C-alpha cells in the first residue's frame, strides 16, 4: 500500500531523511517511531504531498505523490499534529467543507457525516462552534473528518498528544475498528510507546534520518531482550537527548499556547 525506496530529504547541507526504505501492506497498522528531530514529521510530509523529496521513490496505493498528486491525495486522509480545523465554523460545517473539497457527492456526504460524527460521539455537538471544543473533542473531530472520503490510508501525526486516557482509548478503539472492518491501512507516529506496542502490527524506528530497526513489536522486544517497547526503543536509540535547534514552528507553537 505504501512503498518507500531510498527516500532522502536535504535542507541545504542538513540531511533530515537519509536514504530510507520501507513498505506497509494493505490493512496494516504501522507505527513510525523515533526521537525528536529524527525525521518522522519530514517523512510524513513527503508522503502526504506537503514536501518534495530530494530523491527517492514513494508509492501510495500505486500512485506517485509527485507525479499523480491528485490521485495520491484522494487515497489518503490525515490527522495533523497541530489542529487544522476552522474554529469559526461548526463541527458539521467543518465536515461538510472537507466532503466538498474531496468531491464526495451530497447524499453520500450527508450520510457519512452523520455516521462518522456518531462514531466519534460528537453528533449532538454538530452545530456547536469548534472554537468552543476541548482539545480531545477537536482531535476526535479531525479523525472523523479525515475519514469522510473513505481513504485507503490514514496518516496520523502524534494523534494522542496531550489527551486524557479516556479520549486516547476511544481514538484507538475507533481506529482499530476501522482497520478491522474496512481494511484501512494506518500509518502513525507517536511518543507513547505503550500505545504503539498495543496497537501496531509493525514498527519502524528512525533516528538521525536513518531507519535503525524494523519489525513487529514482539520482534523488537525479543531482539533487544526487553519486555516493554519503551525499553526496546531506548536500547536501540540510546539514552542521550537529541540536540535540536528551535525552529520557527516551535516558536509559533509556543506563541499559540499564550494565545489561548
Amino acid at each position, binding site marked *: 500500500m505504501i512503498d518507500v525506496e531510498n527516500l532522502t530529504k536535504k535542507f541545504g547541507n542538513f540531511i533530515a531523511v537519509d536514504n530510507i526504505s520501507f513498505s506497509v501492506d494493505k490493512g496494516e497498522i504501522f507505527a513510525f517511531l523515533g526521537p525528536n528531530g529524527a525525521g518522522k514529521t519530514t517523512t510524513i510530509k513527503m508522503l502526504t504531498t*506537503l514536501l518534495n523529496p530530494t530523491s527517492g521513490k514513494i508509492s501510495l496505493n500505486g500512485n506517485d505523490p509527485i507525479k499523480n498528486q491528485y490521485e495520491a491525495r484522494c487515497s489518503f486522509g490525515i490527522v495533523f499534529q497541530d*489542529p487544522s480545523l476552522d474554529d469559526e465554523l461548526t463541527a458539521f460545517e467543518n465536515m461538510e467543507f*472537507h466532503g466538498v*473539497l474531496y468531491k464526495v457527492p451530497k447524499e453520500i456526504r450527508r450520510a457519512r457525516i452523520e455516521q462518522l460524527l456518531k462514531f466519534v460521539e460528537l453528533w449532538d455537538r454538530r452545530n456547536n462552534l469548534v472554537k468552543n471544543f476541548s482539545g480531545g473533542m477537536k482531535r476526535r473531530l479531525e479523525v472523523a473528518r479525515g475519514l469522510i472520503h473513505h481513504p485507503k490510508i490514514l496518516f496520523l501525526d502524534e494523534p494522542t498528544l496531550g489527551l486524557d486516557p479516556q479520549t486516547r482509548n476511544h481514538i484507538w478503539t475507533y481506529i482499530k475498528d476501522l482497520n478491522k472492518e474496512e481494511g484501512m491501512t494506518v500509518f502513525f507516529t507517536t511518543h507513547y510507546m505503550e500505545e504503539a506496542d498495543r496497537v501496531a502490527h509493525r514498527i519502524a524506528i528512525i533516528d538521525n534520518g536513518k531507519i535503525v530497526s524494523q519489525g513487529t513489536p514482539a520482534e523488537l522486544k525479543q531482539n533487544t531482550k526487553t519486555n516493554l517497547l519503551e525499553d526496546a526503543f531506548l536500547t536501540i536509540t540510546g539514552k542521550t537527548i537529541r540536540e535540536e535547534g528551535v525552529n520557527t514552528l516551535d516558536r509559533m507553537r509556543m506563541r499559540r499556547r499564550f494565545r489561548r
Partner: protein
Amino acid sequence: MLFLVALGFGFGPIYQKAGGGNYIQFLTPGIISMGILFTAIFSGIEIIWDRQFGFLKETLVAPVSRFEIMIGRTLGGGTVAAMQGIIILGISLVIGFRPENIFLLPLAFLFMVFIALFFTALGTAIASLLDDMQGFQLIMNFLLMPLFFLSGALFPLYGLPKIIGVIASVDPLSYGVDGLRGTLTNISHFGLFTDFFVLSIITIIILAIGSYLFSKIQI
C-alpha cells in the same frame, strides 16, 4: 476614521485657502482606500498563521488545485476588505461627505473591489514567501506605508516634486484612489479610463504571480 476626522477638519481650512476646495470631499476616497488596503494585506498575514495551525493545511493536502485555493482565498479576503470600504463610506456620509453622482456609485464600488482584490492577492503572494510573522511586520513598514502615503490618498498629485510624482505613478494604489475619487467626487488626476485599465492589468498580473507563489508553498 481618526485620520478622516483629524486630517479632514485639521487640514480643511488650509486646503481651502490654497484653492483646493473641500478637503473632506478630497480625503474620503483616500481614507476608504486606506481601510481596504490594510484589511486586504492583513488577510495575507492570516496565511502565515494558518499554514501551521489552521485550516490552510487541510486545503493544501486536499485534491484541489493550488490555483483554486488561491482564487478562493483572494475572493474571500477581497470581499471582507471591500465591505470595510463600504462601511467607511457609510460613516463618512455622517461626517459630511457627499458623493457627487449617485449613479456612479456602482462604478465606485467596482474600484473598491479592484483595490481589495489587488492587495489581497499581493498579501497572499508575499505571505507565501515568508515563514515567519516578524518578516511580515517589516514588509508592512517598508512597503505599505510608502505605498499609502505616496498614492495621492492624502494630497493631490499635481505640482509635486518630480521624483515623488514618478513614484506616485508607479504606485498601484494611486490608480485605485484616483478611480475612487473620480467616481465619487469627479476629481481625477489620471482619468477614469486609465485607472480602470491599469488596475485591471496589474490585478491580473498579481493574481498570476500570487497563484504561482502559493502553489510553491511547502510547509
